[in-house]
């Protein structure tokens, strides 16, 4: 049962799923890195398109859609809050009043800056949505446990509990509707949190009786890299290198104040092209289509 609004891992026969978890995670991290480095709308849109395209090609369009449903309200919130906090900019759209000695004017530049910040936040959420849908948390645990077994296990556990807690929240919402006088959202949220803490204690007990407290560093089997590992890792490297190199070269400059100026030239277009093609690379060619799923 899906919790409805949180993207969760779905095993699919796709190159992103067939590649080892570290490679796919690296690709998602590289896409998020580009979002962190750039506020250029074209580059950010390219990341969104790459994420959506990769999600659809990997068969997790529904999960990426869930990520979008989380990302869009967040992006809109950022877009709307920014012009209320920043009154800089030379193009006045709405003249607001004064409050506590501060003027609240809405400028086109502040609105645009908010939009860009919202787009950036939304693109990062989408990249993490792709990560959640395509990276098996258990494989990721295996990849990172040699570095820190307990931290990796905790992270894996947290990932597993997200849908469980989301289901708890849905059930609590239904129970609230069954009360003659439905309680407030805060009361339900508080009760759900208390339930989650109880559940956490139970999970801790279950871990204890599986020998967690006396766990030793596990052995790790080494295996040769598959073609999917290589393609996805190459895509990740390409995206990260293009993003960092472009930024160092001054590509993607955006100036919001006092007037909006967005650079648009060969460097920006090159970064966009690389991001889009790197997103498609794992799925391109005949060998990619032959990717075999593990479930």
């Amino acid at each position, binding site marked *: *049962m899906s919790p409805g609004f949180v993207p*969760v*891992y779905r*095993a699919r026969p796709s190159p992103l799923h067939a590649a080892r978890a570290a490679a796919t995670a690296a690709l998602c991290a590289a896409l998020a890195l580009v979002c962190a480095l750039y506020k250029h709308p074209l580059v950010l849109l390219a990341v969104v398109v790459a994420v959506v395209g990769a999600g659809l090609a990997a068969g997790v369009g529904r999960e990426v859609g869930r990520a979008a449903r989380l990302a869009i309200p967040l992006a809109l919130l950022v877009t709307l809050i920014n012009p209320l906090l920043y009154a800089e900019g030379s193009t006045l759209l709405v003249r607001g009043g004064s409050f506590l000695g501060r003027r609240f004017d809405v400028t086109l530049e502040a609105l645009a800056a908010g939009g860009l910040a919202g787009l950036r936040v939304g693109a990062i959420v989408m990249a993490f949505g792709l990560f959640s849908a395509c990276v*098996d*948390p*258990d494989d990721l*645990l*295996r990849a990172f446990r040699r570095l820190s077994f307990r931290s990796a*296990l905790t992270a*894996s*556990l947290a*990932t*597993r509990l997200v*849908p*469980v807690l989301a289901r*708890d929240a849905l*059930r*609590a919402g*239904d*129970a*609230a*509707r*069954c*009360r*003659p*006088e439905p*309680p407030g959202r805060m*009361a*339900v949220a*508080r*009760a759900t949190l*208390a*339930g989650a803490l*109880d*559940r956490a204690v*139970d*999970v*801790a*007990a*279950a*871990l*204890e*009786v*599986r*020998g*967690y*407290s*006396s*766990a*030793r*560093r*596990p*052995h*790790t*089997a080494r295996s040769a890299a598959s073609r999917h590992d290589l393609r996805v890792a190459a895509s990740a490297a390409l995206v990260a290198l293009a993003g960092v190199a472009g930024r160092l070269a001054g590509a993607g400059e955006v100036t919001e104040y006092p007037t909006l100026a967005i650079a648009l030239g060969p460097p920006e277009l090159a970064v966009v092209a690389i991001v889009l093609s790197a997103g498609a690379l794992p799925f391109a060619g005949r060998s990619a289509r032959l990717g075999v799923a*593990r*479930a």
Partner: protein
Amino acid sequence: MPEPLARVVGFSYAYPERATPALRDVTLTVEEGSFTVLAGASGSGKSTLLRALCGLVPHFHGGQVAGELEVAGMSAREHGPGELAAVCGTVFQDPETQVVMGGVRAELALALEHRGAEPAAVARAVEEVALALGVAHLLDRRTDTLSGGELQRVAIAAALVHRPKLLLLDEPASQLDPVAGDELTWLLRRLNEEWGTAVVLADHRLERCLPAADRVFALVDGAPACDSDAAGFLEWAEDRGGALSTPVARLFSLAGLRPLPVSVKEARDRLRGAGLAPGADAAPPGADDDRLGADTDPRGAGIDPLGADAEPPSRGGRGESRRERRARRRRPAAVELRSVWHEIEDGPEALRGLDLRVGAGERIALMGRNGAGKSTLLRHLKGLAEPTRGRVETSGDVALLLQSPDDYLIHEHVEDEVGAHGLEAAGLEARARDNPRDLSGGQRQRLALEVALGGGPCAAVCLDEPTRGMDHAAKTALVARIDALARCGAAVLVATHDTEFAAAFADRVVLMGQGVVIADGPPGAILAGGWHFSTDVARVLGGARDALTPAQGARTLARELVT
């Protein structure tokens, strides 16, 4: 004489900040390859004893310990759960909190990886335990896609992957439906018989696990009260009023027959041997009067609708007479569903043109396998779901208690959840200032029901699987509350898999399958002749005279089969 696997001598334990000890002077030994059942009411100390055997008490929970407890020669005072895990596997109630990883294969591998096993050894052990426990087909599934029964099997496999000598299970079937619960019991029997794994199992549905038990250890208020084989335990339980007894033993006890049978098969054989089995040649009148206890009044003292004497609402009889049916239809409808469809995106229809009319004051047991549409029907009545087609009509408010009562409890004090009237109805006046999460399962259920009822009159009261994990006393209290609600004119609909409970409270059973009603009638007509939906008493008596409860069965034996 080999050393016992576990040895408990004069062991007492009190949880932190609790004045009353949870365990008092417990002495017990668990032999290799044995099957021990822990019996007792809710709060009697079964779970605490299991937690002590796996080392969680006192290392995880803290508290005060006295006496000795050793598992495989390791003292639980010095060795924590991590070390004891090498020799004992532990499975708790809630399958959701048993499973740690996202995939089944990773879940099974976890315990061995904790011990630093080589990848090849892990792979082999995972494959073998999956095949042995019948979960090989689940290996590549995600744990969040498994049913409760599947999850619990995976939890057992994960507890056994390193081949522990001792398996501890704390009501592992309490959150499962009876079919999954029965499968789990068979699995435990197989583990015990074929692989020699010693099993210590705490369970409320003793009729399910007693036939497998070498030994039963009963606790009362944390102290040992009975340590015997299954037959001896049943004698002890009957002497104490039968609250811990099984329906079949209760049937024999009420009929004055001895010794008490442990299983349905044994009961049937004994009756057949005495010429009392349905279909057997009738014994001459009075021939077995002394054995049958012909002068025994099955409706003796004490109120116990689940076991002994209270007449359940069903009136017996193979079917509803025309007069009864007419009388029922004349009652004003409390709720009515007309050609209700509920279609799910990417799934089968949960309801397919369902028609159902429930009169005021009727007590209905909704039965059927998982996915038959019982819960969906109740959600429609409450308005939590909208029909895709068809109509749902109610004559007033509908109260719905969903499967997890904890979801209804959102305040820090019991008295904040319900008013004084609700507290009284739930029998919780003395716990008014307690946190609802500190109540027992049965108490939380009662409180949640009063929260859902809200103190006002309701046209219908719907309960979804209310008896999961409940002990006998809590079920008896629930039957009484249902009676009270029905007498006030509310139609009561209970979705349940528990046939004994249905026989105790219902005056009508609606059997559902694939979103439609496939049988509808008095309990005697539906539950006496069923293959799966049948009580133990009906199985023993072959459905004779539609006897469902021990009291009805004893009367049938005493008055009819003998003559």
